[in-house]
């Protein structure tokens, strides 16, 4: 394989990985705080894709993008309020089933509202601009994705390490009950978590779908699960871990496709997950927890 082809694939991989990383952060944050695999997160990401289609139909892109971000955030927070909050004291399995139910509902709702046929994703002209670097060619979105991901993650880490709400989030993820007793407003912390997660999912969706060009009701499902795997890979609860996990998966998947094993690209993700869970269940950056008897 020529060096150029290799670089070209590398670039695609990093770009895909960046989008995965943004979604994975949503999973890792919610899991860190609620110990819940938010199965609906992938579908929130899918809905953000549809929001964009409709927003861009009536507004220029610089108005449409904020609308999409806000709508996605509202959706994420709404789901938390309606489907997860009432189950806070329920067994973990119930809340997980509720998440699966929400995912099912969103998929059916999307099928009903927008039909099951794939819809073309609007292309924001400047994102699609092709750059030519030597022999490599890439659209702006391919280059912008990893950069934007890193910038956002940096900002997020600043927020978590240096703000009051960030401190509260860290406390809640360490010990839910104790922090509640210490007077931390749990519901507020959870809402902020969902706001941040949904915001990043919306940005991820713009980057991801601009590359993929179509949206359909099930297009959130597999990417969603993959991003959860990325979060586990990096160590659930760890934001840098989720980012690195996202990049590993993006690169690995692109490599498999390049080698002609595209049928196995989904299976690869889960194979990595299982190997990881067996040999290092806490992920690359996770902390060890001991059960008390």
């Amino acid at each position, binding site marked *: 394989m020529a060096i150029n082809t290799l670089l070209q694939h590398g670039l695609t991989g990093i770009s895909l990985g960046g989008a995965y990383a943004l979604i994975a952060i949503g999973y890792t944050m919610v899991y860190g705080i609620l110990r819940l*695999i938010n199965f609906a997160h992938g579908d929130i990401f899918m809905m953000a894709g549809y929001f964009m289609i409709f927003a861009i139909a009536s507004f220029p892109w610089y108005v449409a993008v904020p609308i999409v971000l806000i709508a996605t955030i509202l959706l994420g927070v709404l789901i938390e309020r309606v489907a997860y909050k009432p*189950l806070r004291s329920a067994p973990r*399995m*119930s809340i997980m089933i509720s998440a699966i139910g929400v995912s099912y*509902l969103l998929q059916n709702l999307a099928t009903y509202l927008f039909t099951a046929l794939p819809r073309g994703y609007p292309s924001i002209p400047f994102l699609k601009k092709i750059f030519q670097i030597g022999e490599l060619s890439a659209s702006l979105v391919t280059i912008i994705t990893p950069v934007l991901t890193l910038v956002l993650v940096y900002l997020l880490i600043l927020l978590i390490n240096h703000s009051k709400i960030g401190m509260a989030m860290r406390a809640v993820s360490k010990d839910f009950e104790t922090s509640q007793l210490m007077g931390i407003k749990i519901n507020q912390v959870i809402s902020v978590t969902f706001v941040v997660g949904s915001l990043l999912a919306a940005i991820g969706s713009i980057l991801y779908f601009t590359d993929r060009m179509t949206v359909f009701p099930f297009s959130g499902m597999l990417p969603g699960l993959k991003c959860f795997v990325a979060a586990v890979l990096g160590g659930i609860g760890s934001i840098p871990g989720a980012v690195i996990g996202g990049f590993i998966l993006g690169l690995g998947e692109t490599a498999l496709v390049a080698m002609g094993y595209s*049928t*196995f690209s989904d*299976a690869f993700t*889960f194979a990595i997950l299982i190997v990881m869970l*067996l040999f290092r269940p806490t992920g690359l950056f996770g902390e060890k927890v001991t059960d008390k008897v």
Partner: protein
Amino acid sequence: MKKLDQKTKIILSVALVVVAILGLSYLDANRSDYSYALSILERSAIYAVVAVAMNLLTGFTGLFSLGQAGFMAIGAYTVAILTIPVESRAAVYYINGIADGLANAYLPLWAALILAGIFAAFMGLLIGYPVLRLKSDYLAIATLGFSEIIRAFIAAPQLDRITNGSYGLKSIPGFPSTFMVFGVSALCILLMVMILRSSYGRAFKAIREDETAAEAMGINLSKHKQMAFVISCFFTGVSGGMLAVYMRSIDSKSFQIGLTFDILLIVVLGGIGSVTGSVFGAFLMTAGREWLRFFDNPLVVGGFSVPLFRSGFRMVIFSLILMAVVLYYRKGLMGTREFSWDGIYNFLRKHLYLRWRKPSGEEVKRDV
């Protein structure tokens, strides 16, 4: 709580079975009129088996596994490959041909179903060894992943000569008789009930309740978890095999994650930890989808076309109902209780008889 005597219960149970058989015979005899109803009932029975199998794992052993679709796929492909008539195989595998060893491998349906179960169970054994060490949600996501891996292998071009890759398998002969579907399903469920009622079933429940305490009672956790997993996989495989025969043609897309979620929702609807609940849930959910079908058609009331009613609305309503169950009626239909004649009797007494007699006062006091 008043109880019926043993004899009455046996008579009632026999009566129920006889009524069910007569009803089915009637439907079967008038097949041309009732083929739609029969096909719904058949699908329900098949789903009931896999739902009970999932419940055995989730509701009785406390292991949350989401690998059902994958194990059903193994069963379905086993049955399909072994029962497609030898003479039509060339036509089914017209693109890449069939693997030499399989060209003439044929088994009668019952044997193929057992083999389907065994293959799925064997796969469960291999997979169970590593993943059963994981805890709750990690187990769920790992089994979900395995089911996707199995699907990827089925669709892989490298296995074209066995699974026919993305073209799927067609021309699977149907059931020789409707009674076979219900007979096999009933047998599978009965076997699972017997397992749950045995000492092993009690050990599974102990693991669900408290792993540490179960271990302190001398129950070998990994052995019993493995056992529950393999049993569940076996019956999931059998029901997958039946699903292949029911559908007549299958491909890897028939076994997506959505199928697992459907089964999960049946289990939730029926009650996690109730076998009869899962059976009711399977019939209710499969039939409910059909009942709600009118939501999919435009509705015109007095010349005015009601908005919202169009294709897809049915599934939205359906998922809303399920969410309502999950959120407000978490125990599902049955909770962890089982159907029993005593239960029915007391229910009727409480709601009809007592209300009837209350004004006189005396009757009520006597058995309080």
